[in-house]
């Protein structure tokens, strides 16, 4: 289904230049710059018509994303970008909905909407720039801050077990679950592209360093900093014995097992399996209703309702 992204003959090419808006207000060195650059690149590649690109975000450093993409955008309120985006996705099947945000926005205040948007399998792509800290409000513990992390709200080190976002979204029923590190731009590009091409709710956790308040958080998965960027080997279905050991992205239990690995864990596509989107299911209901009413105007329908009240 998602192949139709590429079909319509495009009048104007969508270029990085056309997509570039305000210069980001992020700190120099912030991981989010790379996420933005790769997002431009993927849009360039997919050539989604310019006016059909919608970026939606909550509040946070990362959530300022829509200002930096020259497309239709929404800077909504803290934690509620997903329900807003849900409606846009349902009402505007002609458009492409991208949601951006941080770990606090998505997993703390917004955690419930994440579960429900995932289970309902809304057609949209959600990229979480996870920096393990509250950046915009200047260094409080976030739901992904590791135990021991010293923040303004945990001056002696964080004591609560962090959430595991991969597990949460798998359990909630996300139909595409990916993970990357913003320093690994080639990998990030691949994962973003696959997420966007997925027909359903796709979420990517992009580890994105907050150089201001949590420098070095992702060194252990950044080769340049001496870490290991451990990429998931996906099944090639080539019948070789090595393939046995490779990961089957349609196997939820296997994905959960990958998510269970200690930090820094694995990167790549944990899970991908298509199932009907809410968009399709609602449309099916509308279509089957309308089928029985061919040629009936809205006015006639409402008049009939009135007649029932007589």
């Amino acid at each position: 289904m998602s192949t139709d992204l590429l079909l319509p003959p495009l009048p104007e090419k969508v270029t990085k230049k056309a997509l570039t808006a305000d210069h980001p207000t992020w700190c120099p060195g912030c991981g989010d710059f790379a996420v933005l650059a790769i997002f431009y690149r993927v849009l360039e590649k997919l050539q989604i018509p310019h006016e059909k690109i919608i970026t939606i975000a909550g509040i946070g450093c990362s959530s300022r994303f829509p200002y930096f993409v020259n497309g239709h955008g929404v800077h909504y309120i803290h934690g509620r970008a997903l329900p807003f985006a849900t409606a846009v996705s349902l009402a505007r099947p002609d458009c492409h909905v991208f949601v951006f945000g941080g770990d606090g926005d998505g997993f703390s205040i917004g955690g419930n909407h994440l579960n429900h948007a995932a289970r309902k399998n809304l057609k949209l792509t959600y990229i979480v720039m996870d920096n393990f800290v509250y950046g915009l409000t200047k260094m409080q513990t976030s739901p992904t801050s590791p135990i021991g992390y010293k923040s303004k709200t945990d001056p002696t080190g964080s004591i609560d077990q962090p959430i595991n976002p991969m597990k949460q979204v798998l359990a909630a029923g996300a139909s595409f679950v990916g993970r990357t590190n913003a320093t690994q731009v080639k990998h990030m590009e691949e994962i973003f592209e696959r997420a966007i091409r997925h027909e359903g709710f796709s979420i990517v956790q992009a580890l994105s360093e907050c150089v201001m308040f949590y420098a070095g958080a992702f060194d252990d998965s950044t080769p340049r900093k001496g870490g290991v960027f451990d990429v998931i080997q996906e099944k090639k279905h080539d019948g070789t014995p090595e393939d046995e050991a490779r990961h089957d992205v349609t196997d939820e239990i296997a994905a959960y097992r990958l998510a269970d690995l200690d930090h820094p864990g694995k990167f790549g596509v944990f899970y991908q399996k298509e199932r009907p989107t809410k968009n399709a299911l609602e449309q099916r209901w509308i279509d089957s209703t309308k089928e029985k009413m061919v040629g009936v105007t809205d006015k006639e329908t409402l008049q009939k309702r009135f007649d029932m009240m007589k």
Partner: protein
Amino acid sequence: MSTSTLPPSTNDSSPNSDHPADLQDAVIRLAGNSQDGIQSIGGFLARLAGRTAQDVMTYMTIPSTISGGPSIFQVHIGSGEILSAGDEADFLMAFYQHSYEGHIKVLRKGGICLYDSDHVQPNLEDKDHHYVGVPITAATVEAIGGTAKDKGKNLFVLGMLCQIFGLDVVKLKGIIERQFGKKKEEVLRVANLAFDSGYAYQIGDLKKAYHLKPGHAGDEHRLTTDGNQMMVCGLLAAGVRYGAGYPITPWSSIMESLRAELPRYGGLFVQAEDELAAISMALGFAYSGHVAVTGSAGPGLSLKMEALSYAVMAELPVIVINVQRGGPSTGLPTNVEQSDLMQAIYGSHGDAPRVVLAPKNVEDCFYIAVEAVRIAKKYSCPVIILSDQSLSSRIEAFTEPSLAEWMTEPTLDQVSRDENWKPYPLTGETGHAPPGTKMLGGKYPVVTGLEHDEWGHPTASPKLHVEMTNRRRAKLVRLMDEIPTPDVHGDTSGDVLVVSWGSSCGPVKEAVDRLRSQGQKVSCLDLRHIHPLPHGLDNIFGRFKKVAVAELNDRGLYGYGQLASLLRGALSVSNIRSITKTDGLSFMVRELIAGIERVRTEA
């Protein structure tokens, strides 16, 4: 056979209850358990009234447990204008001892109490009322066969009422058939059996005394329904095709109807995970280019306050329906109260001006929804509709709105915007470019909750915050200039002007009419536009010695109800007083009369 303790007198001493053979109006209270289906007989009676061009207003109570329990349904039916559900009943049907004991006090002096003699032992010392006992339970069992002990009693009673009040039996059976026809044939057969035997039951000459006068000319197109259903129809007529909500009494039936209906109109309604998500979805629909609806009751409205502040800032057209119930907190979930007015206006952080409307009766739920959508579209802003539990559930009959006049087809504006386009011009109306719109200047808009400039671009400029705050206010000022000054019912000067809103308007008009018929210089005025208020109120108020604002909420720390406080703060008149009540019930006409008298005479 029925056991009648006293023959009904055709003329008795109670005030305002001079019932000739052809009754102008009658208040019938059915008291039993909700399981007995008294709501459905009430509904049948109301619908019949609508069909026969009579006026009607109903009132019911909802038992506190899901499985049911004591409950009443009251029908005020008549050929004149019916403005309240009635302070007193003319006729009480008591199914059980508790029904009898709990409700005999509302039966007017000289009124008739029909009771199920299989369950009720009336106080035979009581000489103020007429008693008619019928072994309803046994007679029903006899009629439909011994299987379903408690089933069918309601239809038996309906048959009796049809006989007593001389109702149109053909129409009534038609309504029953339409209701039960959807179910199994057997069900309809049993219903007819029960109805017919009730209709045929011999209860003496009661029917002479209680024959209801037929309504006016019967060829009008009249609807009989409740406020929630009319609200849904208003939204549909106005072109609302998208919405989201979360269930809560007494809002749920609006969302249920929208969820079921919208697919027929090519739209959809989402049941959200909570109210925060619900309003966020509604705003998402609005952003997408479709005016959208959400709603709730008090607790859920509180949860919508943050997003409402965004709706004001981003200027998105969204309708928020709040069906008020008793508060604070979970409060009295199935009772009426008008105590969310201040919240509707002021409940969000920051200076967040928004439109607040209130329908004055069931019919008006349609027109207020249409007006709300008109305003939301024209000014691109949130509009809150304050309905209430009484309006939501009471049934009234009224003339069908003309769809030729009111039907609006929704459109999606996708016209490309040129370089000079600004969504928030400092002078002029807001004009968003929904997603999918091409921006010919190449620059695409971001809608934000941060303060912003005319293009929607965030700014912390002190000057722009001043200008944009002015701009958001100015929209409501323009609306104020456009809404009509409300009419005064009665003379335009006098001793007391009673101002009211929402479901209180009906009883207020009835009270004022009654006082006027006694020669008092009293008038009344309904406020449908609460925020902004219409122009001209100072002038009107100034022509009365006192203004009494009647509303169902607390008189507050300084002695004024919520609308009264608002009016005092807004207007420069000093004669505003309050009539308030917080017992979870609609105003009785006699309570209003007492309140008006107090305001008239106090210093």
